[in-house]
């Protein structure tokens, strides 16, 4: 039976006031046997059930759609449920929480700010006209514009990887701005003045310096940078050229 070694970064908030005040930060090695294939998430389950019940991590869907299990695996942002150990290099598999994020415990990051920023951009369709009798029609071409941004699962990888976020804790960051884009390009959205000032400001789109770490980090292979550049242009089109959208 093949085996995989997991080298997991640990952090215990209850030990924050121990001798060195580090929360007992350390790396623990665990050996996980498996039959023919094993995802990193399955490996974490095995460890939690058989080797160390105190190991903490987030998951929900196990199918790369909920975004809960984003981690830093062998130095790359990955979804633990989507990562098969057979596709990783030989040797120990390093599993760490997403870097540059406050850690709650072990692999669990504090996502409070991340979701506060997501809510700031009003992530929902805004309508100003009377509702139609039946559904709101959208052409296939207009729907196509949503193909990229709707795939975002709010895992936070892009946000964790963005140097502008590291430098400025109040910057909205790539995921929230990608979400603003997702509704701004939606033909059914009629927001004119509501959402615009929320991303068109110096803690919004203009804080992006097209570093593109987010593009590299995204496990869904999306392009937040391109979306943010579009938002910068949209502000000019709407404020200066008077376009509706």
């Amino acid at each position, binding site marked *: 039976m093949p085996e995989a070694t997991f080298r997991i970064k640990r952090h215990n908030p209850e030990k924050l006031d121990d001798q060195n005040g580090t929360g007992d930060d350390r790396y623990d090695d665990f050996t996980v046997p498996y039959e023919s294939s094993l995802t990193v998430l399955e490996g974490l389950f095995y460890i939690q059930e058989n080797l160390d019940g105190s190991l903490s991590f987030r998951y929900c869907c196990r199918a790369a759609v909920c975004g809960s299990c984003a981690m830093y695996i062998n130095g790359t942002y990955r979804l633990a449920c989507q990562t098969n150990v057979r596709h990783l290099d030989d040797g120990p598999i390093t599993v760490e929480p997403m870097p540059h994020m406050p850690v709650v415990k072990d692999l669990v990051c504090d996502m409070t700010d991340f979701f506060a920023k997501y809510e700031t951009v009003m992530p929902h369709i805004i309508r100003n006209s009377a509702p139609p009798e039946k559904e709101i029609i959208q052409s296939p071409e207009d729907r196509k514009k949503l193909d990229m941004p709707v795939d975002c699962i709010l895992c936070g990888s892009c946000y964790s990887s963005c140097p*502008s976020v590291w430098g400025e804790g109040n910057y909205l960051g790539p995921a929230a701005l990608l979400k603003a884009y997702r509704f701004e390009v939606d033909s059914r959205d009629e927001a004119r003045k509501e959402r615009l000032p*929320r991303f068109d400001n110096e803690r919004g789109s203009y804080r992006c310096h097209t570093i593109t770490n987010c593009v590299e980090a995204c496990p869904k292979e999306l392009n937040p940078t391109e979306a943010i550049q579009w938002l910068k242009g949209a502000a*000019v089109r709407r404020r200066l050229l008077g376009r509706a959208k």
Partner: protein
Amino acid sequence: MRQGVIEENAGGMWLWLLQRLTAVVLIVGLAVHIVATHVLNLGELSYDNVAGRLAMPLFVVVDFALLGAGIFHALNGLRMVLLDYGFSGRSKTMLSWGLFVFGVAAFGYGAWALWPWLTA
């Protein structure tokens, strides 16, 4: 995220747009400048020749555009970099005004140097 951050940081579109536009001026202006001074070698390298070129309307326009665009682009770029080091609220306002005053002074100094060719 702190409450009120979005309201305090409203704006930014003009600075971004001007950074783009001055970048275009720099690309075109630097191209004209480099081609004219280093590639074409208009006449021999003498005071009269250089002075004559500097007084040509095209070069007066290019030189003033380069002066203004270069100063704006460099200082606004510097502001973008410095904003990553925790300037907000009052310190941000002071930074912006400080750079603005410095920029105006730098433009005045540059214009003073170019002035003789305008009136030549």
